[in-house]
């Protein structure tokens, strides 16, 4: 491999997000955005819950060469759904689940999830990802958070328009178009 290619390769690798660091960065970015957009207050999630939701949403879909969950306002979307769409029971269960996530963080050495070391955060989320069928607690909250993060992210305007390049109409149908995954 020629040196130039090696530099490019490493450069590309370094440009990839280091997930936890990126989440912290994204929170700061997100908070700046929120201060500018004070007309979208959080109505259900308190400051600590909002920080927790934002941290996890950004860990699920981090900022890379494309925007992350925070930039496209997934936490605001989740707060809207919790406030206006979810039933009282669903909201209560979700918030209790968030508290349970912090309780689990405590067993890993920190009072709050957001204060865990990056590796510990990943460890806890990896565990919760296997508990998405749980009917209550941290597993349930993570399951809802993940579904809403994915949905909120991919239905957002920046992602629809600039990442997915979604078209609303076509000149014809072709069900046999060659495809190579870009992963």
């Amino acid at each position, binding site marked *: 491999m020629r040196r130039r290619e090696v530099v490019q390769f490493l450069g590309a690798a370094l440009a990839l997000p280091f997930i936890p660091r990126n989440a912290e960065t994204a929170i700061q970015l997100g908070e700046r955005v929120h201060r500018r957009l004070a007309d979208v207050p959080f109505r259900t999630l308190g400051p600590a819950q909002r920080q927790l939701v934002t941290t996890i949403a950004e860990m699920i879909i981090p900022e890379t060469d494309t925007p992350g969950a925070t930039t496209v306002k997934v936490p605001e979307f989740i707060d809207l*759904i919790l406030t206006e769409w979810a039933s009282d029971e669903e909201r209560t269960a979700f918030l209790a689940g968030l508290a349970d996530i912090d309780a689990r963080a405590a067993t890993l050495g920190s009072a709050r999830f957001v204060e865990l070391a990056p590796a510990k955060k990943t460890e806890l989320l990896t565990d919760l990802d*296997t508990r998405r069928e749980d009917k209550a607690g941290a597993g349930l909250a993570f399951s809802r958070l993940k579904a809403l993060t994915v949905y909120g992210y991919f239905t957002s305007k920046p992602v629809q328009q600039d990442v997915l390049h979604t078209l609303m109409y076509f000149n014809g149908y*072709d069900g046999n*178009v*060659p495809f190579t995954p870009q992963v």
Partner: protein
Amino acid sequence: MANTYDAIVVGSGISGGWAAKELTEHGLKTIVLEAGRPIDPATDYVDHVMTFEKRYRGMGNRNQLERYQPIQSQCGACDEYASKFFVNDLDNPYSTPEGKPFSWIRGRQVGGKSIMWGRCVFRWSDLDYEANAKEGIAVDWPLRYADMAPWWSHVEKFVGVQGRHEGLAHLPDGEFLKPWPMNAAEQKGREVLQTKFNGERLITNMRLAVITEDHLGRQKCHLCGNCHRGCITLSYFSSINSTLPAAKKTGNLTLRPFSVVHSVIYDPATKRATGVRVVDGNTREMFEVKARLIFLCASALESTRIMLNSATAEFPDGLGNTSGELGHNLMDHIMGGGATGTLPWAKDRREVGRRPDAIYVPRFRNVKTKHPDFQRGYGFEGRASRPGWDRGAYANGFGAGFKKSLIGDLGPWEMSFDGFGEMLPRHENYISIDKHLVDAWGIPALHVNCSYSENELKMQNDMVVTASEMLEAMGATDIRTFKENNAPGLVIHETGTARMGRDPKTSVLNSHNQVWDVPNVFMTDGACMTSTANQNPSITYMALTARAVAYAVGQMKRREL
């Protein structure tokens, strides 16, 4: 005289639009009375609104839906974009017995449910028309395929139906426009099933009232995939896109929205109807409209409700109810049985364009051999698709790699088969007037008493089995079966309650949809059906309507009406 026309059409949906077109083209001055509001495609059609333009990103305004449309929102099309095309359940009440729900899905606006209908259109065959007589169930249809074939052709040519010629005796081909091709995964599935089931279970293209080429002034489909929200290029058939403009062009059409028909006015001296009583949807004032000819096309249950609310001294149990069958033999289809699986092939292929509907598996039960568990049969609607980013909600993982795979990969092809089966006509499934309940316009409301029988439930069990067998034959993995416990009505193919027949003692309508007892009243929507077959019914209502109009106009010319 003001308010007097040659013909009245009650309802402007699939059937009413056709009645209006045919009557006006025969030169009759026709008024269409529509209970709901007018629709303006320029502002009401929202097919290209994107998810992020909606407050709940298409998840629906749940509080509003639960409060005002708890029944309507059981239908998936009653969503954040299109819920405005479904009625307010509080204004339009009906009752059901304790523990026997019925999901009555309704659209009250110009165009009716033709705005958000499923658009699947199939002919019947004599397998369907002869079934009642051969099995001794209900009464015989007064029709056979030969009576209907020219009328299906007549309506298909105007509607624009895409489909694939298969030459099946029990699912006859029609006047087809070329269909969109199957996608790579479906095509492979078709080939595999042909080998493994000897052609008995066939994957064919959906027969669909969506045009693949420009047709009679309407533009070909642009594949946005959002038909139930309206269509700015008028590419699918609806009253608004097709029949009502044709009727308007004749100069013989008067369309009056906000006109809730209360009842038919009967003159015992002439033994004819003279018109209808109408409640103005806005002012609640009642007025009358007169005509020589009346077509009830208000939807199966609404048309019969009007007849039940038209009782007279001569017809104390509802107008035209000498037989005692008015209101009875209510049917729907049964759905909610089938399976989904992950296909092993075509990973290097994807789709461009969003087809509104994809494939169909025609009925294969009780066609050549008799099934031991149930009578009649079912077909499968289906498709193969790749989930794309949607799978992120249920896939394992998170982080940069997870995100990248959701953006850069599509997931494997998933094939699904969802059965739609015939429901037998049974006298004990009925509607009647609830003496203690009125709607927002003061009109007595319906009591609906309907349930599936063992025959339908056994059929639904079989859907699960045969869908799984087909997926297994394809080598699919992760096969997920489903069997839903839906209330009847939710298929939105409610039919019957004023059946056609050969004998006025046992049926409400004759072979031309004419009320035996009141010959200038015709019922040509789903109310007329003597059985349901398993095919989606709307194109049959269209054909029956056009056929009935031709007959009625002939009778008028001969001074028989």
